[in-house]
């Protein structure tokens, strides 16, 4: 996935991608910050890229909002530590959650260096206003995160966030295919990835 943060900047405070994702996946809106569930959200540069940020950052970057989500790492630490394989890497590279198997030990949350995972500290249903009847909710006691919309990809649709972005700031493609559009975009632009030095191989790229 490539996120063109220049486009996002132009259309602030747009959050169509967040709204779309959280609606189709029945992500609850919990006011208590400690119990919050988020699959995709906004962060400032120094929080999204804490090891790249510094005090002489240009204002333009300093003020920009960055969309963050699961990086679907090439070497996902969450998958490594999960004691039941409830979170696993699919052949296509998507890091998937099996909600039926998760025991809620939260080892994956300790392992994820991006803070991309949320735990259901309580029953999420009372916090879902207009549920999407085509997608399940979660129950208390399991961990959840972005699944790259596997259910939509299976139907030949784009992920909800990509489809919702009217400005085309988010694009997805096959990194493994050198001729894919996404590889072309990556060749032509300067991009950042979050915490590359940890060796996780994050698959979300940010055009700066």
């Amino acid at each position, binding site marked *: 996935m490539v996120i063109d943060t220049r486009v996002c900047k132009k259309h602030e405070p747009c959050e169509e991608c967040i709204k779309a994702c959280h609606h189709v996946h029945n992500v609850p809106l919990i*006011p208590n910050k400690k119990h919050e569930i988020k699959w995709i959200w906004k962060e400032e540069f120094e929080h999204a890229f804490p090891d790249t940020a510094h005090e002489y950052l240009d204002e333009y970057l300093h003020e920009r909002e960055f969309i963050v989500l699961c990086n679907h790492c090439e070497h996902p630490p969450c998958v490594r530590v999960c004691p039941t394989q409830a979170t696993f890497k699919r052949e296509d590279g998507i890091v998937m959650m099996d909600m039926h198997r998760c025991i809620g030990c939260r080892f994956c949350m300790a392992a994820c260096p991006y803070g991309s995972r949320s735990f259901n500290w309580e029953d999420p249903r009372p916090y879902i206003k207009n*549920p999407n009847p085509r997608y399940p909710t979660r129950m208390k006691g399991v961990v959840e995160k972005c699944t790259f919309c596997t259910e939509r990809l299976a139907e030949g649709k784009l992920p909800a966030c990509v489809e919702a972005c009217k400005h085309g700031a988010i694009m997805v493609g096959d990194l493994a295919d050198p001729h894919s559009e996404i590889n072309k975009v990556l060749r032509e632009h300067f991009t950042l990835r979050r915490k590359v030095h940890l060796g996780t191989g994050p698959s979300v790229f940010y055009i700066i």
Partner: protein
Amino acid sequence: MHDAGKVIPGIIAFVLFVTVPFWTNFGKAAPKPQPELPKEYKKCVESKEFMRREHMKLLRKWRFDVVRNNMRVYINSEGRLINMSLQNECMRCHTSKKKFCDVCHDYVAAHPYCWNCHIPPEEKKGWATKEVKSLTEEASSKQPASHH
């Protein structure tokens, strides 16, 4: 035997206690469950007998195939293609969890917790929601604990 006077009544009391459910329900047969079948559809995924006996195993296999193997289409014994989904496929025909699933499950005191996450047809409108701020308000107050 030592303390026979305490041990034997003790055993009898224990046996009576653990068999309480039998005594309280003695002679009362619960009526046979009558799940309501869809009217406009005649054929289920497999035969009625198979579904009655194996539906839980079938659902488990579906769940495994969809979530873990990214396989979403089931080919039944007649060669028909079926979208493997409890919430979107099974409940398309069986439009009521209460009148279908629960009828037998309650009868045999089985409590599958599929519906803790999957949304049954009767609950598609949602649940009693707790008071929450709108998404934009939430977003603007998003960083109170953050520091630079």
